[in-house]
């Protein structure tokens, strides 16, 4: 029997493959033959990097139209490719674009899908089986029934990106893009620059939440982070309220981080948030509510007002 073909939705960010896509090749290789799906322009170096992570075939739909119109053209081409190539499963990273494409595929193909998986394997019956966080503190083992392809979205850091070397056969995808599918037009793209180390790479993260009261108070988080050479994170509540950009968000629908130290200031510890930071080695929590669930995870829990404590702490660290 031919080896199962496992496709990885591989986004290109700037000149390089998206790190969350690269992580998925580690999962894909355990399931079968890893293959990449790339839409839009991509430099040869980016394709080489995808191959180095274990992709043995790269389907590259290079038409720039895929960068100018969202979702429908990609889904139409993907459906065409699935029909022609019959992959066993498709793995998607937790990015906004991947979620758009995956969700539309569910409706288009009439298939099930598993979202938010933290692990995936094939069981003895050849079924795809995934682990998915469920409720507050349960882990569900979930499978998808019916014929392939099986659609799966994995959480960030579920797998570590790994360079395994090798080269890939590049297959240019030249499926015509119909005018009707060009419906959601990108008018403008705005990048927000972020100071300091990235959340994924930082040894220390200082994160702020609703407990800080007002957006004007968020600077105390940035100042403590700067004193510690740390990255700045935020809970979904303050990102949703527009205090800081989405790229700061730690949690189920934001970044998954595993720093040495996570300092949570004015963050209650909703499951949403905890899902993204529970892998931190040490947790320091500062919160005025003694019953805040974040204290369950804390190595040091400080019951008090972050607005008073954090500036003093920053001052003491700077004056060392």
């Amino acid at each position: 029997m031919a080896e199962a073909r496992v496709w990885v939705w591989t986004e290109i960010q700037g000149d390089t493959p998206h790190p969350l896509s690269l992580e998925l090749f580690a999962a894909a290789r355990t399931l079968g033959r890893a293959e990449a799906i790339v839409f839009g322009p991509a430099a040869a170096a980016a394709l080489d990097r995808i191959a180095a992570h274990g992709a043995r075939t790269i389907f590259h739909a290079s038409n720039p139209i895929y960068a100018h119109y969202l979702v429908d053209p990609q889904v139409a081409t993907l459906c065409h490719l699935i029909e022609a190539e019959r992959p066993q499963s498709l793995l998607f990273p937790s990015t906004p674009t991947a979620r758009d494409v995956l969700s539309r595929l569910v409706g288009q193909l009439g298939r099930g899908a598993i979202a938010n998986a933290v692990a995936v394997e094939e069981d003895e019956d050849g079924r795809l089986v995934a682990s998915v966080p469920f409720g507050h503190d349960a882990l569900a083992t979930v499978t998808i029934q019916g014929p392939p392809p099986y659609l799966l979205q994995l959480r960030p850091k579920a797998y570590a990106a790994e360079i395994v070397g090798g080269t890939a056969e590049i297959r240019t995808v030249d499926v015509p893009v119909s005018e009707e599918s060009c419906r959601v037009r990108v008018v403008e793209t705005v990048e927000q620059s972020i100071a300091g180390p990235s959340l994924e790479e930082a040894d220390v993260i200082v994160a702020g939440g609703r407990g800080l009261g007002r957006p004007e108070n968020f600077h105390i988080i940035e100042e403590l982070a700067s004193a510690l050479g740390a990255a700045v994170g935020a809970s979904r509540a303050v990102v949703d309220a527009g205090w800081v950009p989405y790229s700061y968000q730690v949690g189920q629908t934001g970044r998954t981080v595993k720093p040495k130290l996570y300092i949570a200031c004015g963050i209650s510890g909703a499951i949403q948030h905890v899902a993204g930071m529970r892998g931190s080695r040490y947790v320091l929590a500062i919160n005025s509510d003694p019953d805040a669930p974040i204290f369950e995870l804390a190595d040091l829990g400080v019951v008090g007002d972050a607005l008073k404590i954090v500036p003093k702490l920053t001052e003491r660290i700077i004056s060392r």
Partner: protein
Amino acid sequence: MSERDRCNGMKVCVCVKHVPDPNLSPQVDLRTRRLLRDPAHSILDPADEYGIETALRLIEQHGGEVVAVSMGPPEAEDALRRAMAMGADRAILVSDSALAGSDVLSTARVLAEVIRPERPDLVICATESTDAYTGLLPGALAALLDLPQLTFARSVSVQGSIVTVQRATETGHQVVQASLPALVTVTASVGEPRYPSFKRLMAAKRRAIEQYTLAMLGLDPSAVGEAGAREMVLDLSEVRQVKQGRRVVDDGDGSAVEDILAFLHAIQVL
């Protein structure tokens, strides 16, 4: 844009969900392997209030009608009444015992059946529900209704037959546009939902909710609910971890800073 006549303003359908109160710890039923949905502790998903708010603002500007649509047990009426108290003109509930345990695709199919005949200019969903947070429903629904999907909206505006959305991305945002009709998913950045007055809350209790069953929609019960679910939970295990960390109480004047500094030294961050 469509041939439909928009002289009388827009029609906006907002999908809403009755979810366990997110301020309480979610409980899992280990026997049925589902989230426990206690109607007494369930509310209109706070994420959906932003959708209702967005719809109401568009209607205030352009005129028209807001229709709240939900699939759920009979108690989900509460969520729809809240939506009506906020200002929704009509509410539709699809409720059928065969729908329990429905997966994303089944839910999308049911919602598509009730929304299609409404011929809305705009369908609005939350980016994801607060209880299941897969975020897959809106895209599946858009595919079934053959509508363009504009997602992760931080703001939504309509001019003529064009909808423009500021779409949050990982590193900033994009401005994206499509012709109506379309489906939009909104984030909490679209604006603080209005709080209904007591009078409106009481008035909403007496409003009629349009009720549908599977038979009325012509859907096969074996294709939806647990019977038709494509995803199957094989096992559930508890993974709760509580650290036995140290706890200090600040004196209100930053006394805990010394404890924090000692901790940072101990773990060699300083």
